[in-house]
């Protein structure tokens, strides 16, 4: 799936919809702004998350940022690889650097997310 087909938040997360599952990551712009990611804190599988509420933390060498759930639902899977090798978030933000998969409780929430064309200007200027 190309970047054009993903959905986005203004907090610079991307969302890839696979049926009722939303795969979450951060954008290439976000990883560039954060710099070297050294540590992530993710929720456990089975935890409930609510749209726009903080569900984890991403720590880079210089800064710390909250992760916000783009949609509500249950954590179906988390990416163990980024916990042991967080650098992959920098090197492959749209691929192996994904964070969690959320089983959505309300797919209608997807309408509140940004399209590629809406998101792109947030990374410019």
């Amino acid at each position: 799936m190309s970047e054009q087909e993903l959905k986005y938040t203004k907090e610079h997360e991307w969302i890839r919809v696979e049926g009722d599952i939303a795969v979450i990551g951060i954008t290439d712009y976000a990883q560039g702004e954060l710099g070297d990611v050294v540590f992530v804190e993710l929720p456990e599988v089975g935890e409930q998350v609510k749209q726009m509420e903080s569900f984890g933390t991403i720590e880079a060498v210089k800064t710390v940022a909250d992760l916000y759930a783009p949609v509500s639902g249950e954590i179906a899977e988390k990416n163990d690889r980024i916990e042991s090798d967080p650098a992959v978030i920098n090197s492959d933000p749209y691929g192996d650097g994904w964070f969690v998969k959320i089983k959505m409780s309300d797919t209608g929430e997807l309408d509140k997310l940004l399209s590629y064309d809406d998101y792109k200007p947030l990374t410019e200027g």
Partner: protein
Amino acid sequence: MTESKKTPFYNIHIDAGAKMVDFAGYKMPIQYKSITAEHLRVRETVGAFDLSHMGEFFVSGGKALDFLQMMTVNDVSALEEYQVQYTAMCYPDGGIVDDLLVYRLPDKYMLVVNAANIDKDFAWLEEHLIDNVTLHNASDDFGLIAIQGPDAQKVMEKMTDINLDDIQFYYSAEGDVAGHKMIFSRTGYTGEDGFELYIKPDICPELWEAAMKSGAEFDIEPIGLGARDSLRLEMKYALYGNDIDQTTNPIEAGLGWICKPEKGDFIGRDAVVRMKEEKPPRKLVCFELQERGIPRHGYKILNDEKEIGDVTSGIFSPSLQKGIGLGYVPRKLSKSGREIQIEIRNKPTPATIVKPPFYKDGTHR
């Protein structure tokens, strides 16, 4: 708010793809590609820093020594020609105005001060100026390149005929580097061997190119302020505005070694001597996290769930691969080996007070 100044290397940073930030009134590179990679480059071979934001003052005249003895805590009279000294200026209550370097040059002294404090320091010095002393702010007359790392001398050797083995740690020289006369010193803020070069602004780009060319075989890279901070923190070098400021006495900051009350009077002497005799109520300590996590400036330090201080500097150490930091804690709780906690997002995270420096394999001499 006035617009940030550009250093003579500004265009070089932009061309190198640096991420620029406003720092102390200057547009400075925080990183080029990766803070971690830049940090390790300096630990492993060599890197080049633009430090042109630092301030340079010249002090000359018949009473220059007397003036500097009164204004700084270290003993300026102990300096040999071309020797460099790390020191501080204090307020009468012992709070620190700034930490700085003093260079004893043949006919004058050069002071190198923190960028954020240039105006404040100059005003403070001017306010106390005595007859037969001339004080000049030359901050805009110099760019500054630091070449730091175990291979720094090899890079310098390709740019100068001066015998660098004659220049010991914390000594300087005046001579030709890459065909231009300049003052340079074997000094730095990284824990590695290295040199700092004071360069006329118009030849700065040329010097940068020369350093990159000479350093190519050692994989020299430009290093941003992000790695400068992590490198200095691994050595427990204090950062003004974080670890030391107008509210901290040099003694509690672990800078007793630069305070020389035996030299005679200086501003802040009584407060420094008193704290040394009475022992400081709190001390700046180094700590390492035992679990994953990163301490940040302002996080609380806890002991048995009780707040005992806060973090003044913290980072994920690229060399040690763990969270490290500095902070003030009560002296009675400051012994190395003590288990404390750092409150990270409301969660007490176990940490241990350790002896400085964090990084023990530095190549500085």
